[in-house]
């Protein structure tokens, strides 16, 4: 049997108790899988990703990640290093003045030294096909470049899982193609939330639908 990375058991979550977003949700992710999560706007797809890395806490059920149950903020510290979440809006993620600083932020937080962080930055930018972008100013990048830089920032932490929240959102055709090619070449297990049929077609090994607060295969 392949290694199980995430298991969500009987998960329940509501911003407003009268209208629960998720209820009795079951989900698991194994190494090597690329699972596409489909569903209508407001079905709770982003909420699901945020629950997996502890940005939100469930009101019911259990989150198991990398073989251990995760409850408190401290439990999630290493989950966030091992499962990289890519935000829907790159502008929410980029906050350092230059690309290299932004990409180095994660490795530095994980305790990397200056040289190590430098290596991680170079390697991650190479992986997304933006070598030499280190000195660029983040807010002057194009939409496609911002997306790739945020992906590099996540890859620089060398995660085992990628959680992608509508990665191809608002990208033009060329940038989208490039992103799909890059993602297809990565070894990580992925959870992909997307409305982009072509992207799902080319990347996903399994599809699930989030409907009525539950996962349907």
């Amino acid at each position, binding site marked *: 049997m392949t290694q199980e990375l995430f298991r969500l058991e009987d998960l329940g979550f509501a911003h407003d108790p009268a209208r629960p977003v998720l209820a009795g949700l079951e989900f698991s992710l194994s190494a090597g899988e690329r699972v596409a999560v489909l569903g209508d706007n407001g079905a709770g797809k982003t909420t699901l990703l945020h629950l997996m890395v502890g940005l939100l806490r469930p009101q019911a059920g259990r989150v198991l990640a990398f073989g251990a149950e995760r409850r408190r903020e401290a439990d999630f510290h290493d989950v966030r290093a091992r499962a*990289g979440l890519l935000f829907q809006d790159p502008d929410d993620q980029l906050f350092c003045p230059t690309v290299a600083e932004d990409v180095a932020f994660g490795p*530095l937080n994980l305790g990397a030294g200056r040289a190590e962080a430098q290596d991680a930055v170079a390697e991650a930018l190479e992986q997304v096909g933006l070598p030499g972008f280190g000195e660029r100013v983040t807010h002057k990048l194009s939409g496609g470049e911002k997306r790739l830089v945020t992906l590099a920032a996540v890859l620089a*932490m060398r995660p085992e899982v990628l959680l992608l929240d509508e990665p191809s959102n608002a990208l033009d055709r060329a940038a989208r193609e490039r992103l799909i090619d890059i993602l297809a070449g990565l070894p990580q297990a992925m959870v992909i939330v997307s409305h982009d049929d072509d992207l799902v077609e080319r990347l996903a090994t399994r599809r699930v639908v989030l409907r009525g607060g539950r996962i349907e295969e």
Partner: protein
Amino acid sequence: MTPVPAHLLAPQGPARSLVARLDPRTRVLAAALFAVVAVAAQGIMAQLAALGVAAGLCLLARLPMRTVLRRLLALEVFMALVLVTLPFTVPGQTLFTLGGLTASAEGMERALSVAAIASAVMLAVQALLASMETVALGHALARLGVPARLATLMLFTLRYVEVLHQEYGRLRLAMRARAFRPRTGWHTWRAYGWLVGMLLVNSVERSERIHAAMRLRGFRGHYPILDLGRAGGLDWGFGAVHTASLALVLAVGMM
């Protein structure tokens, strides 16, 4: 391989001026010392001397003259009320009368010294601190022994001022796209009210998302401190000359 840009590791300034090559800590200490001396300087001569030292620092930092003057002007306008009223409110020897109000020589001197001190400190801060990357400033403060919490708080404040500003820009753009033009009237005032309200709501939400993105990348309440090199001969030399000129400023005040 992509090198980490220099300003991740070192402070920045236009064209690597002398000030830009200094250790960030030297700059922070020099600015603090300057502020103390400028406020302590006795008499208008000493205060003008401090202003001279500040102008010298601006030259050393090779700041663009236009920007410096524009910021200085903004400060003087801000203080205009104080500068105009002081001569008439401080009692003393009559200098001249204007429509029944008497301006005193003491008040005039007081106004001049307020302007001189404020301008001097402003210029020095511009030369020594404003040209520095905020992250470098935070690191310098932390390495000088300022509690990490305070240094982080300062960095966050600077960061979120930028968030507010960006959000304001976005909303203004949205307003202009729908042909909003400020006039005097309820429509304009109400629109501005909404703008401010929306600005706060959006900024809080946006900062929450940024905070989430930072936590995801392992942020636990403080920025990692890189080893930013150490103070060298240049720093000691600059420190010595700086201290000497400030001592001279104090000496002028005691004459």
